[in-house]
């Protein structure tokens, strides 16, 4: 069957299946199991209302459990086992973790990830805040914001192609077609550089791509936060003779501290999962490896599920503090 047709059929089956499930299960509950009539009508209504939430929740909980909760446990188990040739698994304890810790590539990935984790959220948040503040009071601010926000819609792979052209290198005697080299030569550079193969610095050229994408996200959220600041606080500062910089750093920033933290952590999570950019631009060569790509290498190239799962657990471990912080905040807010 043609995939497009299959897709349409799936939409039809999926949608009618969902609607059918919710409708019929409700009917069953109200009409058959606990009908709201007869001698026990009152008790039946109560019982039906106790069960109904779970009918509404069931498909979503099943999806959440199977696709997100179970894999955490299963990955943990896989990271402690090795596949035996011919099928089956054997328990190896922490051996995968030890093997991983002895690989220089893993430490390279860890080191790079640390740089990514510090630089990308910091730069994106700072630039986002800057743009949000600058565009706040100018007439064409919305157009400017919209253009800076645009990379959010572009895939990591698309962004990689865009930036690969910027970083492109031609031999010295030819015209440079990459913007960075053209500028470099224009400002007095002698030899065109192959930016993505210069160890250590090349990671930063990859980070630029993610900063370029994430700044728009930071800007949108921080811009809304800046608008939410009570006018009186700013007015009072002006009357007290504060200059624009003091107003920004002493009055505005402290008031949106929580939002800045939220933006920072959200981008941090994105950074931990970043895979496409490194995969498409360098594939971890020239010392640009990061954890997510290292894990992909282990799982699907080396076919080593044990070490691959162990590195996935490392990512999970790094996410956990943010997870706990988020959950605590959400609970606080609900009270």
């Amino acid at each position: 069957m043609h995939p497009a047709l299959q897709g349409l059929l799936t939409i039809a089956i999926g949608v009618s299946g969902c609607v059918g499930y919710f409708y019929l299960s409700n009917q069953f509950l109200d009409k058959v199991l606990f009908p709201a009539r007869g001698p026990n009508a009152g008790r039946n209504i109560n019982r039906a209302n106790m069960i109904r939430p779970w009918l509404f929740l069931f498909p979503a909980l099943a999806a959440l459990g199977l696709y997100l909760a179970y894999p955490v446990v299963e990955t943990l188990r896989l990271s402690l086992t090795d596949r035996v040739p011919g099928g089956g698994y054997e328990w190896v304890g922490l051996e995968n973790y030890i093997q991983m810790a002895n690989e220089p590539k893993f430490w390279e990935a860890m080191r790079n990830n640390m740089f990514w984790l510090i630089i990308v959220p910091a730069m994106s948040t700072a630039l986002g805040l800057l743009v949000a503040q600058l565009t706040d009071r100018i007439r064409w601010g919305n157009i400017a914001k919209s253009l800076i926000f645009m990379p959010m819609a572009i895939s990591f792979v698309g962004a990689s192609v865009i930036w690969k052209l910027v970083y492109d290198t031609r031999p010295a005697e030819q015209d440079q077609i990459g913007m960075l080299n053209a500028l470099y030569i224009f400002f007095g550079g002698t030899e065109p550089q192959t930016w993505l193969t210069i160890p250590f610095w090349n990671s930063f050229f990859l980070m630029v791509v993610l900063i370029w994408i994430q700044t728009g996200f930071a800007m949108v959220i921080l811009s809304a936060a800046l608008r939410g600041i009570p006018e009186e606080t700013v007015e009072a500062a002006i009357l007290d003779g504060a200059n624009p910089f003091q107003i920004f750093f002493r009055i505005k920033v402290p008031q949106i501290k929580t939002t800045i933290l939220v933006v920072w952590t959200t981008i941090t999570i994105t950074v931990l999962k970043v895979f496409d950019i490194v995969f498409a631009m360098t594939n971890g060569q020239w010392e640009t490896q990061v954890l997510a790509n290292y894990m992909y290498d282990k799982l699907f190239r080396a076919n080593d599920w044990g070490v691959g799962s162990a590195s996935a657990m490392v990512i999970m471990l790094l996410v956990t503090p943010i997870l706990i912080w988020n959950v605590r905040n959400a609970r606080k807010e609900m009270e």
Partner: protein
Amino acid sequence: MSDIAGTKPALRWVVHASVIFLVVLWVVPTLGLLISSFRTADQIATSGWWKSLFPSEQNLTLRSTAPDTQVLENGVYVIEGNLFDAGTTATISQWGVSSRAVDAFVPGDTAELRRGGTITVDAQGNYRMENSEEFTGSRGARVFVTAELPPEFTLANYHKVLLAEDSSDSMGRAFFNTLTVTIPATIIPILVAAFAAYALAWMDFPGRALLIAAVVGLLVVPLQLALIPLLKFHLNIGIGKGYLGVWMAHTGFGMPLAIYLLRNYMAGLPRDLIENARVDGATEFQIFTKLILPLSFPALASFAIFQFLWTWNDLLVAKVFLIDASGQTTVMTNQIVELLGTRGGNWEILATAAFVSIAVPLIVFFAMQKYLVRGLLAGSVK
């Protein structure tokens, strides 16, 4: 009031200038790729895309027509024509007939041809070759010109990338595959999540707070953890790699954000509305379909855009759950990565392929930006 702080004219100019600078910095990389996708391979390889907007001086190697077009005029064999393709209006400043002296002549000069005869070239590229004997050989004479060419753009790349028969370059099929992945993977999670969100927002049952906390927690679980366990699971239940698997995976991975966004929105709907409906005897199912769903449209739209962008732009999930060895089910992101590997230097193909895949999300983005912003504001955990 804070306008007062911004009325210093110098500062105001600095603000405008820095915003312009930042916007240019943000737009130019994309613009470069867009412009490159309309240039020929030669143009891309020989000059930066920023030069294509202006007339450019280029060194070209052109050829006269073959000797079989010669005519006999008053006892002299003559070949006449124009060196450029029809429609090109170029201005030649220098030319030559040998690769060692490409700038030996100026327009109007006459040069001796190595194989016998003479050639005269004018500034517009019109040439006249004369010879007392017959011109021989199967190909025309080579002429090296330094010419100023007007900006020139072509749609040929798009034609090639979208319609090529050769499947290794073709984005046409990948485009439909991406669409096939995206649409069910956007619609189904919305429906499933909407019911759950309603239950979490407006129904009272033990464990509700705990479930909400769990959803917030799962919001950040990296999907990397799910790859192997779920691939194993899909292989075990017999759906293997394919569309069904990728639809299910996207549904699962999108679920926390969907529930979170929709629950927050639904919880903000006026309590009176729902309680009045309950008093009037509406069942929960009716309240949900007749009241909550229509009222939640903005939140549904927000999530739909997120999920659409995410599934359209995804590479990892498609690589793990969909694309098999046959390569029939490749999606655009994967196709582009493969082009990067096999055709890293062919920027005309790469740029065009990338733009084909970027175009749809960009249209969605600019058309529905309002909902996207709203969703972002509601979705970031406060």
